[in-house]
């Protein structure tokens, strides 16, 4: 009984499994290679990178590019701002999402359908770039720290996922028992619903947090002053538009043009690694949470 019947393999099955594993290994290699390559370049000697000597592992290990990254202040302004946007933005997201998802998870609440309708419509239709811009301008939010936080207060999809989760964890019996004991909705929310929602709070932190961290287009539209730029705008200027500011490379001997150019390239690799590091370090620990989140969303479907 222990061995399932379907473990007996025919010849065709064996070929199938061989191909299956070959494809999976191929996928892993394709996904991992660019990441390793970038990492290796960032740790290599700038000239070796320019001469394309790096193929997989670092060549002539050097911390040059990191030294440059650390000396390049705009990146750190960006880091500071992005952390502020992400932490404050996500905190607001969590408060709003929980406050809305909890009442909507109630079995019976007059007016619930109207609110659900309001939410669903935002998924189907958006005012669009220009009307949003005009509205933010009317509110006086252009070039303001809060313009990257307030308009993204809550996302309908995330509210639905949280609501589904609460419908499943806060059972009808639990709600009734609390009501009979004279527990108010506020108290139920704070002392019962929230403590039971640890997993979904983690999921939401992750979903909202990644959006805030990657934010770039809204910043491009609404933010003018450099002191308010999130990290991604600085990254775009350096990595894609090739605008490296100031005398970062100026202290070098002007005759060493090749080295200069090389340093510019490795600086990019260093920046890519440093800026992606927070997410990449966090990711293995939160992986199980976001898988859970996607699955709750799917069940709702």
């Amino acid at each position, binding site marked *: 009984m222990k061995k399932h019947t379907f473990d007996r393999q025919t010849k065709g099955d064996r070929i199938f499994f061989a191909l299956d594993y070959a494809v999976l290994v191929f996928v*892993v290699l394709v996904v991992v290679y*660019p990441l390793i390559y970038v990492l290796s370049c960032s740790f290599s000697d700038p000239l070796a990178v320019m001469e394309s000597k790096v193929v997989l592992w670092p060549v002539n290990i050097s911390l040059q590019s990191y030294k440059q990254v650390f000396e390049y202040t705009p990146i750190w302004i960006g880091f500071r701002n992005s952390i502020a946007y992400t932490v404050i933005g996500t905190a607001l997201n969590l408060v709003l999402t929980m406050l809305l998802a909890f009442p909507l998870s109630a079995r019976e609440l*007059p007016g619930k359908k109207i609110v659900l309708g309001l939410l669903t419509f*935002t998924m189907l239709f958006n005012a*669009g770039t220009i*009307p949003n811009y005009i*509205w933010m*301008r009317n509110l006086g939010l252009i070039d303001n720290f809060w313009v990257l936080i307030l308009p993204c207060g809550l996302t309908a999809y995330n509210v639905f996922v949280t609501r589904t989760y609460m419908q499943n964890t806060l059972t009808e019996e639990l709600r009734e028992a609390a009501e009979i004991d004279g527990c108010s909705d506020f108290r139920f929310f704070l002392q019962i619903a929230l403590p039971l929602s640890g997993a979904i709070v983690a999921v939401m932190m992750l979903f909202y947090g990644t959006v805030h961290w990657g934010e770039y287009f809204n910043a491009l539209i609404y933010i003018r002053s450099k002191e308010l730029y999130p990290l*991604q705008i600085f990254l775009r200027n350096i990595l894609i538009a090739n605008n490296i500011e100031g005398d970062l490379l100026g202290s070098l001997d002007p005759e060493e043009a090749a080295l200069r150019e090389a340093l510019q390239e490795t600086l990019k690799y260093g920046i890519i690694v440093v800026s992606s590091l927070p997410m990449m370090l966090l*990711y293995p620990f939160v992986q199980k949470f976001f898988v859970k989140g996607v699955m709750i969303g799917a069940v709702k479907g």
Partner: protein
Amino acid sequence: MNRSTARQKHWKHNRIIMKRHWQMYVMMFLPIAFLIVFNYMPMSGLVIAFKNYSFSKGIWGSKWVGLRHFDKLISSYMFPRLLSNTFLLSLFTIAVCFPIPIVFAVLLNECRHPRFKKLVQMISYAPHFITTVVIVSILNQLFNYYHGIVNVMIQNLGMHAVDFMGEADAFRPMYVFSGLWQNMGYNSIIYIAALASVDPQLEEAATIDGANRLQKIWHIDLPTIMPTIIIMLILRMGSILDVGYEKVYLMQNDINIVFSEVISTYVYKMGLLNTQYSFAAAVGIFNSVVNLVMVLLVNWICRRLGDTSLW
């Protein structure tokens, strides 16, 4: 008579609940205020698509011009190009990035070594957490014409280097396949979850009947996850004109602009860089309406053909 008393009863019942649960409404107040202020109030700005808007005159003081901006859009030489660029980029993306995660999920589901399976999942989800700006810059580095590793390899094989990031023809494949690289794993999660619900008894019965792996996938796995596939397809079709404009904009250059100018990047440039607010708003409305029609249409087709639909 009967109906009105029933309604009265219903209202009375509702009033009792509302009274008992007034705190629920207090909780909802703040989030709903946010929805109204930041999602619904901006829609008042849609009216400028029918006016000649300028900041000095404001929304209500600007002159009404009716459908002139829509006329201008449709008769513009850019219109066919914008529409075809947007549609083609989107269709190409759907054709590649929709089915492949399903295949990947099925293949992963067949994996019999839990540890290896976990590893593959862990690695394949990771690129999802790299930001768009960084993805595009990795592309720029790896596919650089002069020193990008891909061109170095191509030249080592004795072929000519290709300007992947510059050439117009390369734009669509680069956009689509980098998207696949980034999101294949993440997009497969939902199907992996759905596949976990396949009834093992069906599998055993199929084995006894002499079905091979492929037959089992075709006759058991796929039908099980079909509702999920259809829902995801409807949702995806609903955003057919919403290409990832952030990434498109980052990848744009003077050469590939013939293929990379899509509706949303055009709205941004026209509206915010050229300050033709009204015209850009009209283009935006066109975009939203097409999306809305698409989601309703696909939903209607799916409901007609099968029994899975969004509503």
